[in-house]
């Protein structure tokens, strides 16, 4: 059974067919890249999976259960977490708080228990802290020690990206949807992100779907590449096959006048 399965998805905004007839399966432990020119529908696809938009037609299955129609927080509870293309961190909260909030949905204590600081609540809080530190330590000591207590707005751009990834992991998700994880990063940082994404899979056991424009990153880590153009899936396969596919070249570069 595939971890994530999209069956004939359709979504239109007014007259614009943003996604049409896209089917896709993602197996557990895979790294799948979605590429395509601007406006191809990559982000819309993410928004459909995470419940921000409801598909017009078609179904989304996660671990064999239908999840379309669920609200974003319910989708996250099922085990899908995402990062955003233009960082959406909780800017005025500290790094630690940013990584604690995504664990809130797993809290069993009610608000009264939280106010009274019952032993059960304190245990859960301690556990949340441990998980937060564990996820943040994926990025080495960069976000640890004093950084934990700094508000996000003092962090560098790369550190914010890292915080956002740690935040997505802290939801307890199995599937991470990364929307341009290397946007705005220099080559060195991109290289590091590439390694980290691979470690997410190898050490963290996450399955990863990512949207990316930097082809060297895509080529380096993807098990499978899916190409979208005008909302349709035009190619799928390993990186080498896909980039040499004439349809893909046409989508990116256009057709030569004969």
């Amino acid at each position, binding site marked *: 059974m595939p971890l994530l399965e999209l069956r004939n998805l359709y979504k239109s905004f007014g007259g614009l067919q943003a996604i049409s007839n896209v089917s896709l399966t993602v197996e557990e432990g895979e790294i799948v890249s979605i590429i395509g020119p601007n406006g191809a529908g990559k982000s819309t696809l993410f928004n459909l999976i*995470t419940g*921000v938009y409801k598909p017009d037609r078609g179904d989304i299955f996660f671990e064999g259960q239908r999840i379309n129609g669920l*609200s*974003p*927080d319910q989708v*996250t*509870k099922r085990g899908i*977490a*995402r990062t*955003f293309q233009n960082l*959406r*961190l*909780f*800017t*005025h*909260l*500290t790094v630690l*708080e940013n990584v*604690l*909030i*995504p*664990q*809130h*949905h*797993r*809290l069993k*204590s009610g*608000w009264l228990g*939280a*106010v*009274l*600081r019952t032993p059960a*609540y304190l245990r*859960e*809080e301690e556990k*949340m802290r441990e998980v937060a*530190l*564990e996820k943040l*330590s994926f990025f*080495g*000591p*960069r976000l*640890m*020690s*004093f950084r*934990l*207590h*700094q*508000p996000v707005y003092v962090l*560098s751009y790369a550190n914010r990206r890292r915080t956002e990834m740690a*935040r*997505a992991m802290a*939801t307890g998700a199995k599937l991470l949807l990364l929307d341009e994880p290397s946007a705005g990063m220099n080559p*060195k940082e991109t290289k*590091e992100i590439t*390694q*980290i994404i691979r*470690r997410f899979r190898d050490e963290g056991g996450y399955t990863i779907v990512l949207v990316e424009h930097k082809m060297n990153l895509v080529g380096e880590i993807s098990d499978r590449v899916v190409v979208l153009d005008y909302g349709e899936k035009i190619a799928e396969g390993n990186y080498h096959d896909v980039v040499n596919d004439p349809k893909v070249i046409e989508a990116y570069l256009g057709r030569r006048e004969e």
Partner: protein
Amino acid sequence: MRNHLLTLATVGLVTLGLYLLTQMDGTSGLLSALRLIFIWGIAAISLNLINGQLGILSLGHHGFMLVGGYVTALLMLPEKERRPFRTRLLSDWARDNLDLDKWLRGLGLDFIANSIDLKFIIALFIAGLAAALLGVLVGAPSLRLKGDYLAIVTFGFGEIIRLLPNAPEVAAFTNGPLGIKGIPGDAGTIWWTFFAFLFVLWFFTRLKFSSYGRAFEGIREDEIAAEAMGVNLAYHKVLAFTISAFFAGVAGGLYASYLQSVDTQTFNFFVTFFLLVAISLGGLGSITGAVIGTAVVVLVRNYGGFLEQPYPAWVGYLSGALLMLGAFAFSAYIRKTRRLRPVIETKHYIFGAIGLALLLVTVFFRNEPWMTQTVQFFGMRKILLAVILILIMIYRREGVMGRAEFSWKLIFGPREDIPSEEQRKQDAWLSNPELNPGASETKEDDDASA
């Protein structure tokens, strides 16, 4: 541990001070100001939960306070105050049955019914519950909206709730526009107000620094991100709204018992407006700030009376001069501390010149009749408040406290977010690829939980 002891010591000292104040003569003015600070402080803290921590603008707070006020009034009204209502609007049923005393005696809890204090606490609790119930009813449908739209809807609900007691159908319970008078005042001594205030401080601080408080702040920072991170928006918004409405109801009950009467004008829209001013002044999202803001507003309103006394005109000229010279000095100081150059610009001399001219006029014409005549400035208190608000918005837009809270750590403890010299060095080493080639490979198994 030390911090807990410090907190306990502070509470003890404040309680002792309050006790001494109640024993002294001539402190009734101060005591009533303190009571107002506590009452409005509770309301401000509860509004702060929605407007500051959850980050949604709600303008219906006076409605919840009114419900709390009316419920407390009805439940606490003694028998002899109820009797005249027969001739007025209050229906026989309401007069005979909406009586906490009767309920308690019916349950065989005479010892509570005999103690006006215990009865008052129960009445406040029921008042809070009534307001909270209304909070759910109002919040659940309207919290789908965002921003200005939500503000308008909550304002509308607040006004509807406020005007309901005047409706003929409801007037049978509320005595219509006449309101309810004769609520026992001795039940609302400063002590119950004080303890309620302490409880509210404790409750809201605990809530803010819990997982739920963090979820609220996440919603304030970015609703979409919070939802994507698994925070159930609808549940948390309604939860915050309900808790806030509960304590608004309690504050309304306390205020009704402070005034010993309640009618629909007691809780008009200016109540919400006043609370908004208080929390913006103190810092949206800060409980400490809400208290500071309330204290400033209440003190100016209670003790600003001297500003509106009749004075000879030269006092006005002189204070005008001092104000202008003060503005001159202040602007120079601000520019110096903020390292803006040049420190004094030409336009600043205008303030200095006006101030100097006013000073000279005051000195030279001090015996002229137009200088010695008596004048009175009505409304100076409100102007002073407005000026304070304007200055805060210009020089410290986030309010006195910003989003920070008072804590002992702030005074004594180490700042965790500022790196030590060693950490700073290590950090420079980490982020410099020349000093630390291939950081991510070598640091893989780094247990950095320290």
